[in-house]
């Protein structure tokens, strides 16, 4: 994937005429092919009843705070808007559509598992990785704890164990990779959802399903599959009964984020030609004789 992008950049750097035409093409093509068949989840917030069973299942799956189910039946918690943290990879928040304030709806948030994740691009040692089958996974052994991923994430998802002095980790939804999704297992939260507001499948299927639902129930949904295009697409996608502006999901452009810096990086360090050229140039200047003229002109 990155190879393709680099190659493309070489061409672009060489020929600025074809620059704009080539770029939109690149935006489409350079996502890994597997992304289309990769695992994804569709969250239907119109079906979600805010029971927080997904939180409970996640908590149990990852041994986070080991609270029993009763702790998750507490609905008063919806009074505040919570964020995922190192003790809860997913949280459910309550929202109200201003035009229909009597009926709340719920949004489960967790790592979106972007198709081209900013955190993966940011990571200095490749401790974060986007697997071909969908999940964005973290390798604590590699991590140096620089927290650039936290800065970079457009959804503000990675959470840090600030209180751990010796072995702090970046914590976020793992997409339950450890449950072996390839063998027909589904993430713990998807399995637990009583109303089946969460649907697990391949990304392409789910996009089709989402649009079919919107078409079938135009009154129930806004015509927007959140995550289909946001930041180049995410593996977790949402349907909602009202504008996503009401929820905590941020309004994001369809452009992938990593090219912002990767294009710069790969242009400046293209086969190390620019640095080596600079080195050569400075070497030439240094090797040439001292410039007496300049010496004289110097200010006294």
């Amino acid at each position, binding site marked *: 994937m990155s190879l393709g992008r680099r190659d493309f950049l070489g061409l672009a750097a060489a020929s600025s005429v074809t620059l704009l035409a080539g770029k939109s093409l690149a935006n489409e093509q350079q996502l890994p092919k597997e992304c289309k068949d990769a695992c994804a989840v569709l969250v239907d917030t119109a079906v979600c*009843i*805010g029971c927080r*069973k997904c939180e409970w299942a996640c908590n149990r799956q990852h041994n986070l705070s080991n609270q029993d189910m009763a702790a998750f039946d507490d609905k008063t918690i919806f009074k505040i808007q919570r964020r995922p943290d190192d003790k809860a990879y997913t949280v459910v928040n309550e929202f109200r559509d201003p035009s229909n304030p009597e009926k709340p709806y719920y949004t489960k948030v967790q790592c979106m598992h972007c198709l081209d994740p900013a955190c993966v691009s940011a990571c200095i040692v490749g401790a974060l990785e986007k697997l071909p089958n969908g999940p964005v996974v973290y390798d604590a052994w590699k991590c140096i704890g620089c927290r650039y991923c936290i800065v970079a994430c457009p959804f503000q998802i990675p959470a840090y164990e600030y209180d751990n002095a010796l072995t702090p980790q970046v914590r976020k939804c793992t997409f339950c990779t450890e449950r072996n999704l390839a063998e027909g297992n589904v993430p713990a939260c998807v399995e637990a959802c*009583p109303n*089946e507001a969460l649907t697990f499948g391949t990304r392409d299927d789910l996009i089709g399903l989402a649009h079919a639902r919107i078409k079938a129930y135009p009154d129930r949904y806004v015509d927007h599959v959140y995550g289909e295009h946001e930041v180049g697409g995410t593996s977790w996608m949402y349907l909602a009964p009202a504008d996503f502006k009401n929820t905590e999901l941020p309004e994001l452009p369809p452009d992938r984020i990593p090219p*912002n810096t990767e294009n710069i990086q790969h*242009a400046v360090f293209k086969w190390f030609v*620019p640095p080596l050229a600079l080195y050569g140039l400075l070497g030439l200047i240094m090797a040439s004789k001292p410039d007496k003229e300049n010496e004289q002109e110097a200010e006294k």
Partner: protein
Amino acid sequence: MISKKYMPAVAVVMVLLLSYLVSGSDISQRDSQGPKIDCQECHICDVPTGRRPCLKTCPRTAMVHQAVKHDLSEAPDSMLLDELVDEYQAVHFNHKLHAEMAEMGGDCVTCHHYSPKGHIPPCKECHGGEENPNNLNQPTLKGAYHRQCLSCHREWSHDTKCVVCHIPAAGTTIADHPPDSTDIMGISHPVITEPVKKVYHTPYEPGEIVTFQHKEHIDLFGFRCVDCHRKENCSYCHDIQRPATTSKTQEEVHAICNDCHIDDECSKCHDVKERPGFSHNTTGWPLNRYHNTLDCWACHPTGKRISKLSKMCASCHAGWSQENFKHAVTGLRLDEVHSEMDCSDCHTDNQYDEDPVCSDCHDDDRTAESAPPGMKIKHPGTQSSR
């Protein structure tokens, strides 16, 4: 010399500028394909049959057209949902109670979105059956049950504990919970009475009183409760968290009336005093006993504003002629002499709504009242006027 001095800087500036251009953003364009319509739109298999339609999750709205009104007496009183016997005791589902409540709303289709004539399939016939495993388009049985139950139940109690419906089986670790006395589960809903009229006192000064003829609207226009009481699901009355008063905007207050009365003046409804209900007598066309039984739309064109109709019988009864009109339907069976006459002999200028003219033949100032031209009857034939 200057150029040499700045060359490295110039080189770097150029490289970085180039990269800046490269990384500029634009929105990629996507092809949009129009929808294809074919059998596969709704059916999974190539040859759907009546027994096995292998339907995708078709929208409920699209299936409802197949729904047939079923009588409550057909339905089972209660059923046991026992798919999870390992963890929970079977859920006792009081079908009758729920069906009664559904009658207040959308009838059987509230839950049975697919209910063809004769056989109403239970949920598990389609959902989560072995015939369509992993069907993304359809919730499994778990999802189907929970959506049916929880989407209403949570609306008043806001409780989504498993143990509200599932009593843990002996030996499981799931905590039992005491019954909640505020919960309305298991209590039959009292009969809801329909008021004849409702009188509203409004802040609109030129006409503070609005008399809403509730029964009239139902009787005249055939409205069902849910046509107007749209948001009034269970939680509308029973929500434990419902705020005491909700202030509505002027628009919201008028919304339901405005579905029909959008073009009317305020004075159509607002008055300084309470109004009587509508009577056709005030229109100059008191309804006779035949017309009285019709609904408005039998005579007034549907979908249009109700306006004055021509009083000529033929404007509605286009087929009536001298030959086939049975005068008996008017409450008077003509005697032999009069039955042989032309209609226009008595009803001059075809003015059927006015008194017939006798003086053309009779000189004794008689009228149809004082000397009927036949026999008055009490129970006239019924068919001819409909």
